[in-house]
């Protein structure tokens, strides 16, 4: 049973990460992440008041202690966080690249339009 839960968790990590990485930044994924965060926060708060409930729920899943359940959930959210942050980082990098390239190309000399100003200009006017 424990093994099954562990496998399910690992599969969940991979699937959620993949889904969130694929889709990029959109409102639906943002909403999913916020809901997950809310559930996590509420569960954490409840576990302080009713520690037994969490352990009982963990026992129902075959994990044993409530702390273990929290640990697994933390690992899952950590991976999701990593995946989405990576995705956002990549998007930002793409924007910066596009922006820098635009600046670089705009500032570069264009010998085929100018008539003078560059050493190699004579052979460019064929």
């Amino acid at each position, binding site marked *: 049973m424990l093994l099954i839960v562990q496998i399910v968790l690992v599969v969940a990590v991979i699937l959620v990460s993949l889904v969130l*990485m694929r889709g990029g930044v959109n409102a639906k994924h943002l909403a999913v992440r916020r809901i997950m965060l809310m559930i996590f926060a509420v569960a954490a708060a409840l576990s302080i008041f009713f520690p037994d409930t969490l352990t009982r729920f963990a026992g129902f899943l075959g994990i044993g202690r409530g702390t273990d359940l929290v640990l697994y959930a933390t690992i899952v959210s950590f991976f999701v966080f990593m995946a989405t942050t*990576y995705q956002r980082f*990549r998007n930002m*990098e*793409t924007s*910066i*690249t596009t922006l*820098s*390239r635009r*600046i*670089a*190309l705009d*500032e*570069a*000399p*264009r*010998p*085929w339009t100018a008539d003078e100003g*560059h*050493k*190699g200009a004579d*052979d*460019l006017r*064929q």
Partner: protein
Amino acid sequence: MSRTWIVIPMYNEATVVGSVIEDLRKTFPHVVCVDDGSRDGSQAAARAAGAMVVQHPINLGQGAALQTGIEYALQDPAMTSIVTFDADGQHRVEDAQAMVARIESGEAEVVLGSRFLDDRTQISLQKRIVLKTAAVQSRMATGMNLTDAHNGLRAINRDVASRIHLTQNRMAHASELVNQLATIRPRWVEHPVEIIYTDYSKSKGQSLLNSVNILAELFFR
């Protein structure tokens, strides 16, 4: 009238880039150096040698520089082909010339350099194994029968160049280029080239550990 632009990505190559450009300009008058944020005066050396310099305001990586150079060359309406060339002097101008000739003759739309088609290139066993593995990997991924997937010397005609959009800024751009060519499906050939491993190019060249980075970047696009 055909016009070839040589695209040279450049990052802190002040000691060699000048002579590389001077050498090139005897055959190819149109050279564009994409400076990827060098801090050693490479820009001045490249300009003095007669190259156009396009300057990235910040360091973005070799793949980004290559794409910038391609887009710069595409702005020239008279450009008919592009040659990508390394700044560290490891390529031979004669090889580039022969590759452009194969494009101009209409034999191919893309000519890719390969150091494994003849025995001119002296290469360490370790590096040979890594490059051969990379070639096998790209062959399996794209179906293109390449012998040298990570060769910086390539000649590309205008039409194909306009359809290349590299997004891998750093190491994985060579694989990405091959992937995109596999989609574009141009008429392509490999051309035997010699890679001259000088002490300088060895010190600048990619460490073998970099193949780990390449794989990581290809996996997590």
